[in-house]
């Protein structure tokens, strides 16, 4: 199924976004314009393709504990420097254990197509451990794609080694291109056997990141850039970052929200730096030339995540369980190939399905955001109360498009601090702000009432229906009920 391309004209005459030719448009439009060899790589990668992530799964292994920089959104007493989500500790594995775990998961979850190393430190600050894992896997499990995330400091030195192991996806976290901004994000780096602080440190880090990016692109290795949106620190600046990294050949730019709470013990958490609201995040993603749609489904996975994006099956594959598993990988590979083929067929079928007819509402209708509870496969199939995240779609006269996902428990750090039902519901309602409808398979009376009070209409009538069709149908109903006139928004709220 093709996602409709919306707001493209609007984006194209928006000079501030500074989009370069070939990178404007939305999800599939952007994928379609990529060179064939890149498109092939992207199409069944769950982290890059909104469509693929309904069907394929990825996993991360935590083999790289050491880091060579400090970020203000990270606390090394917990975990990962390369994402904005502190507070989860991964099970540290040796390269041999990581290889075993990956093959065990691949044999049991044939949809698992991608193995990433993202931490908990910086994979390239632990080059032996990272490369040993990659080397063994490319030998023993050649049907698994490899990818790696890095802060970029050690990247230029690692590029040749990366190219050797045929690692085709590299993610660089780039939060700034201006050392003055960088000094507010990175307190220090370890560089040439010294700890370096402040603007000088940020300048070196930025130079290394940019050099690494250029070197990877030169070698034809796919580069994705992640940025953490930190309100008041780099929010406006990220537009510049986006322009530069795309001009240099990064094929995707993914903006993620800062998550900062005092209990994480991070600089930002303790100093009261807030994260962006869902609207601020969405606005910035739009402002960066509107071509980040592909990454709007990013889930900020933890360093040892296993499974489909948004679900974590790590518990099934702890080291003690894996030790006992017998894996016949040759046999598994045959099964995996069959599963991949049937998924490819399903994707092709979706592709072939006639694009939904234009939405039947007046052309002046205002756009509406709707939240969807789903466990995947592109249909509405989750109970409201079970949803830990919602997909958000925008319906407008031009069609339905995927906007992003909202975590219902984004700000919870554990059951003991957020076990209260009322407060969990309040958090969910806050996470859904801006949405007028929430589509789910079922919903209880109590949340129904609370949602209505908050101006969000629950709707369980489209259970098991394809998401885009259901969103379009509800939008048309709203149109028929006269709820889509320009000034109806205020009335409805």
């Amino acid at each position, binding site marked *: 199924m093709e996602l409709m391309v919306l707001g493209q004209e609007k984006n194209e005459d928006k000079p501030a976004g500074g989009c370069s030719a070939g990178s404007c448009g939305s999800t599939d439009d952007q994928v379609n314009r990529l060179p064939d060899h890149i498109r092939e790589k992207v199409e069944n990668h769950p982290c890059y393709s909104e469509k693929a992530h309904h069907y394929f799964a990825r996993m991360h292994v935590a083999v790289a504990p050491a880091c060579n920089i*400090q970020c203000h959104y990270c606390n090394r007493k917990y975990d990962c420097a390369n994402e904005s989500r502190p507070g989860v500790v991964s099970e540290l594995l040796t390269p041999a254990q990581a290889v075993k775990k990956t093959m065990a998961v691949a044999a049991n979850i044939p949809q698992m197509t991608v193995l990433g190393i993202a931490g908990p430190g910086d994979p390239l600050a632990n080059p032996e451990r990272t490369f040993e894992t990659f080397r063994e896997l490319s030998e023993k499990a050649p049907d698994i794609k490899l990818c790696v995330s890095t802060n970029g400091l050690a990247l230029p030195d690692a590029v040749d080694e990366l190219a050797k192991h045929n690692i085709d996806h590299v993610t660089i976290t780039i939060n700034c291109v201006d050392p003055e901004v960088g000094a507010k994000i990175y307190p220090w780096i370890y560089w040439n056997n010294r700890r370096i602080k402040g603007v000088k440190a940020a300048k070196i880090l930025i130079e290394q990141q940019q050099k690494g990016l250029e070197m990877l692109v030169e070698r034809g290795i796919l580069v994705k850039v992640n940025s953490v949106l930190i309100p008041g620190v780099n929010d406006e600046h990220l537009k510049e970052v986006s322009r530069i990294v795309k001009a240099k050949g990064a094929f995707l730019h993914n903006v993620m929200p800062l998550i900062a709470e005092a209990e994480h013990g991070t600089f930002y*958490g*303790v100093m009261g730096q807030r994260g962006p609201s869902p609207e601020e995040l969405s606005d910035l993603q739009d402002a960066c030339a509107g071509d980040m749609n592909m990454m709007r489904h990013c889930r900020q996975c933890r360093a040892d995540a296993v499974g489909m994006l948004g679900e974590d099956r790590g518990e099934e594959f702890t080291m003690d369980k894996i030790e006992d598993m017998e894996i016949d990988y040759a046999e598994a590979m045959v099964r995996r190939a069959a599963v991949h083929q049937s998924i490819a067929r399903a994707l092709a079928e979706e592709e072939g399905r006639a694009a939904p007819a234009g939405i039947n509402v007046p052309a002046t209708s205002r756009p509406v955001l709707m939240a969807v509870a789903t466990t995947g496969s592109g249909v509405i199939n989750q109970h409201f109360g079970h949803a830990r995240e919602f997909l958000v779609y925008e319906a407008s006269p031009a069609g339905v498009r995927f906007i992003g996902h909202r975590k219902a428990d984004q700000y919870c750090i554990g059951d003991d601090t957020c076990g209260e039902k009322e407060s969990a519901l309040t958090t969910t309602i806050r996470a859904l702000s801006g949405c007028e409808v929430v589509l789910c398979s079922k919903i209880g009376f109590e949340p129904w009432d609370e949602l209505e009070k908050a101006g969000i209409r629950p709707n369980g009538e489209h259970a098991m229906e394809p998401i885009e069709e259901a969103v379009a149908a509800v939008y048309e109903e709203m149109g028929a009920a006269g709820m889509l006139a320009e000034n109806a928004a205020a009335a409805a709220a």
Partner: protein
Amino acid sequence: MSLSIIESCVNCWACLPVCPSDAIYDARPHFMIDAGKCTECEGDFAQPQCASICPIEGAILDHFGEAMNPPGSLTGIPPEKLAEAMAEIQAR
């Protein structure tokens, strides 16, 4: 003369590969420095390498027992601010 690692170490491995004297070893509950091997990096580097990469304030001590990286020096969080935040979390 030797540096030492104490219990606030989080076993992050960063120090181990950068030591020129092979003095650091993976131990539990936390990493350790072999006092017989540690040279404080003299003759190799201007700064002790372990203390230059360690991300945890107070985890590595000099031979007088003083923190190589005192509170606030790495995170930039003023110690009073941290105490305040901790007190507030405890009170919840």
